[in-house]
């Protein structure tokens, strides 16, 4: 069985057999986060999750993979959520309760982080935070638009004073 090595620039190298891959790990050409692709099935997996290579990397704190709780193949596991995912959530919350303009930033950062997690380029633990920030951002923008529409309607029917909300 052989694996293609997916480089950061998207190029594929190989296929290489296990002994060659082990040699590349020792030479530092393959790191723990490097994505490998099965030459027959096309399944992608992170190098550190491959049993034949895992012992060659320092421990990353990756949890055991079992059934439904297993992350997608190639996912970056361990280390906690990225600061970008946390930032998306914070901006989403602040955008919702204070300045809805910050919701735009929450949407942009949250979506970007979700894409990175799905491609195995960011810790999978941050996906929930990024998604929450993304959704809160959308809610914030919708609230801003609805607020302006509400006020426009109130002005249209001749009310001069509009209650705060």
């Amino acid at each position, binding site marked *: 069985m052989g694996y293609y090595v997916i480089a950061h620039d998207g190029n594929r190298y190989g296929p290489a057999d296990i002994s060659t891959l082990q040699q590349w790990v020792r030479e530092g050409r393959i790191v723990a986060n490097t994505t490998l692709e099965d030459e027959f099935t096309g399944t992608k997996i992170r190098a550190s999750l491959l049993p034949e290579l895992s012992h060659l990397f320092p421990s990353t704190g990756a949890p055991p993979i079992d059934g439904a709780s297993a992350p997608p193949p190639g996912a970056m596991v361990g280390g906690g959520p990225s600061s970008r995912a946390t*930032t998306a959530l914070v901006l989403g919350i602040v955008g919702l309760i*204070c*300045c809805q303009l910050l919701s735009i930033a929450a949407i942009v950062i949250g979506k970007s982080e979700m894409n990175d997690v799905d491609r195995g380029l*960011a810790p999978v633990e941050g996906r929930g935070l990024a998604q929450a920030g993304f959704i809160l951002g959308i809610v914030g923008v919708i*609230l801003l638009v609805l607020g302006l529409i509400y006020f426009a309607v109130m002005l249209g029917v001749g009310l001069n004073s509009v209650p705060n909300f």
Partner: protein
Amino acid sequence: MFPISEFLRRLTVLLAIAGLIWGGAYVASPLVERGPVLCTFRVVSGKSCPTCGMTRATCALARGHWREAMRHHPLVVPFWVAMIALIWVHRGATASRQREPWRRVSLYVFLCVLFAATVFRVIEWIPSG
């Protein structure tokens, strides 16, 4: 930095978002001047939050009223420059070794602007005299 097709795609997305924001701000400009307070922090505490006035400043800016925009929020220009940079670097991009520093820098710059706005407001909260 980017392939030309990627550059044009990003530019199109950025211009579309910027146009949407500018158009929305232009149309909403007469409304927000007399509009309700949407900021929960201000409603509850009676004090302006770090970004209070940014919507009104943006609307004034959309109509070309620079002085009025500065009066509502002096950091409106840095805020939108940082926001546009953030959208430009993050929108549709996936992480790579080349782009990662730019993504990080754009995020830090945006957060620095928010921090500066916070400092500005805290100074305002301090009673004079």
